[in-house]
């Protein structure tokens, strides 16, 4: 059968973000996949060098719209390491609390997108409704729903009140009940099981070889979590388990994330009930002495690392950021090989090869070295003709 190369993206109605996949298929099976990223490269690492540390807190927060807090935590931690400053325990607890809120809302968002991609939009509606409760808590505590402006070098900027603690506990009760319902749905609902079991298998050896991170790594049965293996902020004092799954597939990722939600709820309860008294921040100088530091955090999507070098002024010499998705894109390209076309959206949760939506596609015949461009109408006729023949095979 002839091989066909299909470009998906960068601008595509089914893509959530601009990135391009060149997928070579043989019939319905993917034989090769190549990823091209960089369509929204903003030059932030250059910008960091021209802004002061205080300004950079807010720029790092804008690296990602979902895991904004983990990036500002990372930057503040790296600066604190160089300064030799330890934030007060109450500040660390509040910082950790926000990190866990962020994990809850990010995992719920993922669950909704995954449900949407597998054609189970009810799940999308449910989980995004529950995600609103966490965003409301964010708004209550920090004043902002997405970029919180809550972190600062040396601690956090706002304290929480007893009334807010009561509201957090109330929301956590609801979240626990809802998460248990999601786990029941995830383990028993036929739509989910049929679409995710055995799809996107990444073996433990491949996950280690390709340096996977986060829930993808833990779904490949590797027990690695930065929160446990390299504790930062208040994580060293919190009770929680690292969740892994041995099914290696997309269903394993769903189970890992759903069970992590329960752990998050447990941690948040523990933190607000055992919140230390005292100050929330220490004052730090605006100029940072020369030095270098590495800070790692476990973002909702996996390990996030910042490397900071200072030069004695109020601006960094270099700040290197590696977000978890860059580490995981390599194993996505690997997992796609041998998969079915219909499983692309689930493997690359968020990418839907919706051919009918595409204005035009490029049909490349590797054997004949020929290339032609078809309009949507031509493509439609071609597919009708093809399936008509198929019926008689």
């Amino acid at each position, binding site marked *: 059968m002839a091989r066909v190369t299909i470009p998906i993206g960068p601008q595509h109605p089914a893509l959530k973000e601009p990135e391009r996949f060149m997928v070579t298929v043989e019939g319905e099976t993917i034989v090769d996949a190549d990823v091209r990223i960089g369509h929204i490269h903003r030059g932030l690492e250059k910008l960091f060098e021209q802004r002061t540390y205080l300004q950079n807190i807010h720029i790092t927060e804008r690296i990602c719209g979902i895991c904004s807090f983990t990036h500002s935590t990372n930057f503040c931690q790296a600066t604190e390491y160089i300064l030799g400053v330890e934030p007060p325990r109450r500040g660390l607890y509040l910082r950790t609390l926000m990190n866990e809120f962020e994990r809850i809302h990010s995992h719920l968002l993922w669950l909704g997108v995954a449900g949407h991609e597998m054609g189970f939009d009810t799940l999308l509606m449910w989980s995004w409704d529950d995600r609103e409760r966490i965003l409301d808590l964010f708004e209550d505590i920090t004043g902002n729903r997405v970029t919180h402006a809550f972190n600062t070098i040396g601690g956090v900027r706002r304290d929480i009140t007893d009334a807010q603690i009561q509201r957090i506990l109330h929301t956590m009760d609801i979240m626990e009940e809802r998460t248990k319902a999601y786990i029941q749905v995830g383990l028993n609902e036929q739509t989910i099981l049929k679409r995710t079991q055995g799809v996107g298998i990444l073996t433990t050896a491949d996950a280690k070889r390709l*340096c996977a991170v986060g829930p993808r790594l833990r779904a490949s049965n590797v027990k690695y979590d930065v929160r446990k293996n390299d504790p930062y902020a208040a994580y060293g004092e919190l009770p929680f388990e690292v969740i892994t799954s041995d099914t290696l597939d997309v269903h394993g990722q769903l189970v890992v994330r759903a069970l992590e939600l329960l752990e998050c709820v447990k941690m948040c309860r523990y933190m607000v009930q055992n919140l230390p008294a005292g100050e929330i921040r220490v004052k730090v100088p605006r100029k940072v002495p020369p030095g270098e530091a590495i800070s790692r955090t476990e973002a909702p999507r996996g390990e996030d690392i910042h490397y900071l070098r200072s030069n004695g002024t109020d601006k960094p010499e270099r700040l290197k950021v590696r977000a978890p998705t860059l580490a995981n894109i390599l194993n996505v390209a690997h997992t796609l090989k041998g998969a079915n076309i219909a499983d692309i959206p689930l493997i690359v949760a968020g990418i839907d090869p919706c051919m009918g939506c595409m204005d035009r596609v490029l049909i490349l015949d590797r054997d004949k070295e020929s290339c032609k461009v078809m309009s949507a109408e031509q493509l439609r006729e071609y597919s009708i003709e093809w399936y008509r023949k198929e019926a008689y095979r």
Partner: protein
Amino acid sequence: MTDEFVTGIAARLQGLAQNIVRVKPQRVFAEVPREKLLDVVKILKDEYDGYHVTVITAIDSGEKFEILYHIVAGAELFTLKVFLPRKDPTVDTLTGILPGAILYEREIHEIMGIRVKNHPDMRNLLLPDSWGEKGHPLRKDWVDPRTKGVK
């Protein structure tokens, strides 16, 4: 700060790496000459479970470039520092030992202009395909070509 682990690994890497120090818990820094880089990475992978390359940082420090390989080995986060002269910024690829380094090496190639020897795929990662000869934007002496001639 020294301890048993650092003394042990310093003895193992005798003649391959210098200045092995632990700056804080779980952060070990070492300086490696570029000829010895692959040997050190291989020892880390085979004997210290160092399969995970977290990221590769490139820094322009004027006279020379610094390439920092952040590798998780066991419970430690190693940072291998390689100094490259500005005239000849060439370094061997890690992809033969750690395939996960492929994207990070593409990144230091385009943004800092580091030549990576024997790399299997040297296309641009972040910059557009039409970038051409507009230079390496993260170098300190880089000037945005769009602003040339603007007063």
